[in-house]
């Protein structure tokens, strides 16, 4: 039965049909599938399946990423309060767009996926100063700072990732906090993350979940 729910949920996601996806979830609850199962056996595997289609180059569009993240985070918000005991958080992330950059869609998709994977996300919004990234990461005890940039000058500029790296170094917290970057320029130049001082990057919101989970594990080790 769970398998059938998963198939139906996946189809709804790929068809970018939010209403149908939410209906599948509610029907499942009525069939006494638990909220825990909905999240861990349906929502998270759906994201993993999407990662698989992407790595097999089966063309998943931005709209599908957006809807997968959107629906997953809505379902998680709805399910978690119904859990029998509070779920274990994998780690904490602060996310924002780099200074001078007002493009928020990538950040939103990434944050939605992280949330569905039980990562606590603090959204710092748009146009975030480098000092603020670090201050907030320390204040929230975050393992990862996630920086989204859509333009070359905000990705490579002196007030973006480069400066965040420098501040982490100055404060001696580089082993406690890792940096993940992403956004259009990184997709056009897959080595760019290195030259700006990032620890990792991801091509899309779904793989961002996996990459950031790895960074969290590295810090926690």
């Amino acid at each position, binding site marked *: 039965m769970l398998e059938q729910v998963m198939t139906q949920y996946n189809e709804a996601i790929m068809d970018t049909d939010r209403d149908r996806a939410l209906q599948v979830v509610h029907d499942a609850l009525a069939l006494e599938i638990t909220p825990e199962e909905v999240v861990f056996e349906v929502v998270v595997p759906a994201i993993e399946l999407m990662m698989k289609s992407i790595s097999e180059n089966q063309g998943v569009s931005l709209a599908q990423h957006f809807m997968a993240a959107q629906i997953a985070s809505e379902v998680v918000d709805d399910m978690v309060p119904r859990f029998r005991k509070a779920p274990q958080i994998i780690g904490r992330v602060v996310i924002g767009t780099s200074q001078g950059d007002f493009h928020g869609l990538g950040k939103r998709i990434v944050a939605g996926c992280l949330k569905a994977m039980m990562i606590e996300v603090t959204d710092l919004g748009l146009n975030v100063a480098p000092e603020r990234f670090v201050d907030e990461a320390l204040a929230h005890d975050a393992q990862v700072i996630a920086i989204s940039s859509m333009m070359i000058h905000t990705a490579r500029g002196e007030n973006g990732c480069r400066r965040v790296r420098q501040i982490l170094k100055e404060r001696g917290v580089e082993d406690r906090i890792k940096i993940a970057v992403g956004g259009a320029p990184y997709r056009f*130049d897959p080595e760019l993350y290195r*030259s700006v001082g990032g620890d990792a990057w991801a091509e899309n919101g779904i793989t961002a979940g996996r990459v950031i989970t790895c960074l969290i594990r590295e810090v926690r080790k």
Partner: protein
Amino acid sequence: MMNGMERLTAAINGTLADRIPVFCNLLDQGAKELGLSIKEYYASGEHVAEAQLRMRAKYGYDCLWSLFYVGKEAELLGCRKIIYAKDGPPNVGEMVIKKNDDISRLQVPDDITSHPAFAEELKCLRILKAEAGGKYPVCAYLTASMTMPALLMGMEKWMQMLMMGPAGLRDELLTKCSDFFQKQVAAYRAAGADVLVYSNPFGSTDFIPRTFFDEISLPWMESDLAPGGTAGVVYYCGSARFNDVIESVIQNLGIGVFYLSPMDDIAEGKKIVAGRGVTCGVINDIMLLEWSKEEIRAEVKRMIEAGKPGGKFLFGTLVMPYAIPEENIRTMLEAAYEYGRFDSE
């Protein structure tokens, strides 16, 4: 030696030329050329025209741009704040649509040409036409109705409305943006623009699933283009891939020039176009920040070898990042002129 217009015309007609046309899209670099800050530079149509003419003469490529920056279109619809960077393109700094109610209040000016935000661009176009009209194609950039809301409300809110509705409001906004497009394209045509770059990332299946393309993107593109036709129109998805929709674009919209993504397979694109139009191979110009001279030459060679056989091919760039060293621009262009030559074939 032929000029840019002759090369472009030859590429369109499939006749012989000295080499393929080369479009190098230098925008913000004009400020550097005139020794101005980017903000000062874009304050005047005379600046932009002068720098466009100078850069074209200096580097020898085949196009001129009347485009300042894309955010200007939002200014025509009421945006009053532009954010300037010292080393990158200006960006929209205020959302014209902050809440759903703002959509019904959105007004498309009846006469775009009399709008103050258009005045400088018009000035620029007139100078370009006077100085180089008929010799070098003057390009204008126009945002498709389906992409325009991204400039008015941000991609995030627009994606949400596009995918999750409310559909009535979405269509009201699209109707206004399509009306705006039709007026804009007419204004550019009247002012003498030769090439009209029709920019629509939502016309790529990197952005939306195929069914969405067929059912929603296509009809809105038809609405944009039907009144004015497709003369001079270039299909461009903001650098997103679109080989898989070329056939449909030809059949349904009748567009005849395709400005591919750097991630599209050029030979495949050309095969699909199959002589029914011009295929433009586009370099991943962000890599011009990193590549060595040899790497640049090798990439240009690879691209041109894939696209040149049989003609009807153009070499182009995206929006060249401001920080690309002049030397790398020259290396790319020299390679394009060299490999793009037609030796008395």
